[in-house]
């Protein structure tokens, strides 16, 4: 299974303070360990939300809101995409991660949807295919 591992932002990451050399080294080693274990698929760090934007939807209306955004703890500072065998394995790997923000921080793990999670007959793709087939059959009659 794949999981997305989300590193939450904090005051410093939102202020654009870059991690110190010690943390960078530790993170580098940790990333290397993930690659060597065949776990790491992808990963990136994100700029603070002050450089980001949001598009708000309301019916047909779209409103663009420029960053920064207030709810710091809910913001994301970086992410990984991992290939693991179970949520438990993902948790074990996250526990080995150096504390990404220093004192208080949080990392969230979310399993990525896979075809099986939809059940065999209910992927949007398949539903669409079935509808197409039905339409074709109807047209043929």
């Amino acid at each position, binding site marked *: 299974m794949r999981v997305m591992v989300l590193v939450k932002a904090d005051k410093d990451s939102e202020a654009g303070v870059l991690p110190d050399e010690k943390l960078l080294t530790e993170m580098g080693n940790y990333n290397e360990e993930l690659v060597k274990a065949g776990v790491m698929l992808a990963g990136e760090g994100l700029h603070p939300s002050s450089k980001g934007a949001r598009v708000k939807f309301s019916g047909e209306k779209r409103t663009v809101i420029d960053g920064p955004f207030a709810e710091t703890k809910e913001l994301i500072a970086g992410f990984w995409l991992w290939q693991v*065998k179970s949520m438990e394995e993902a948790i074990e790997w996250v526990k080995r991660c150096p504390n990404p923000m220093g004192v208080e921080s949080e990392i969230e793990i979310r399993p990525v949807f896979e075809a099986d999670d939809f059940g065999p007959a209910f992927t949007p793709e398949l539903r669409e295919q079935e509808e197409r087939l039905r339409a074709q059959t109807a047209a043929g009659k």
Partner: protein
Amino acid sequence: MISDAKRTIEAVWGIESARLIAALTRFTGDLSLAEDLAQDALVAALEQWPESGVPRNPGAWLMTAAKHRAIDLYRRSLRLQRKHQQLGYQAEAQQEQDWREFEARPDDEVGDDLLRLIFMTCHPVLSTEARVALTLRMLGGLTTEEIARAFLAPAATIAQRIVRAKRSLAEAHVPFEVPGAAERADRLASVLEVIYLIFNEGYSASAGEDWIRPGLCEEALRLGRILAELAPQEAEVHGLAALMELQASRLRARLGPSGEPILLMDQNRARWDRLLIRRGLAALERAERLGGALGPYALQAAIAASHARARTPEETDWARIAALYDALAQLAPSPVVELNRAVALAMAFGAAVGLERIDALTSEPSLTDYPHLPAARGDLLFKLGRYEEARAEFERAASFSLNARQRQQLLERAAACQR
């Protein structure tokens, strides 16, 4: 709570077991003993962790537990040998000293141990089946039951296969080492073969009801990715990684609504996994950057990459693919490669050109009951409007197929030839 703890321990085991077994094999020189020691450590963890919680460094904990167990065994065997007290004590002290040095080793040596271990479990003294089972068990951390389920074999058969494999390695005195330059290429080929076999068993199940078993593909991919970091200077290691990433990128698009296979040219390319394609192309680039002529895995990866780069089937560079098959046929000549080359030529230069090549293969003894030959021939005949001959070929292909879904699909193609 107990079952939570058990799942956590299993996860830790999945992460640590290969390194544990590798290190213990290096220390004891005996794979079988190493595995027993590692298992004992797991049992100790299952007893203690649910109470005490998972230790902060579970890998080190397991290693220490295995070490205590090893020293125990060692002491007991010394006593059994009725050695002098003094000698026994010295040997123990030496053993403890060895362990301390052994534990203080830097990480890249741990990597070397894993590499030694995979060369051992893929050793040519073992049958292919034994290599596959032993590698999944020792490197993949799979249980006997998991391996049995993946290969649709009784667990007892797999257990026996693993026991025999370990015995064969011991009897042949297979050393725990990375082979030297003289035999390195052959030994590496054996490792790559085992990993690709596991992948293929998952990607194109040769028997049974299911067309693909993604668990095996994932396991092989993981082994391939690990190997790419253990032996980064070997171009073919990256070639294999690239090939598997690119093929796996199509897994989601390979099955239709009722589980029937969808052929490459008919797949919805929007469903191809862009992340795996990117990883595959990057791995292929790594192989190419190492210089020299591409090996058979890198060539196959280059072929898969040609497909991956085409946004629509019409964009496929068939002439390039035919040329890559040409190169592959020179390195690793086989009727199957010839068949694929014929199909590529048909796509590049017309069905008649391909059919001529395929006709030359029909007398090939190794292809007499290979379903893809009549299936490909049927396809070209169909394109040339020779429907009656095409139908016969699809039916013949169906009669050779061991896979229920593939057989059904071939029969449907045969039926479509009736006009």
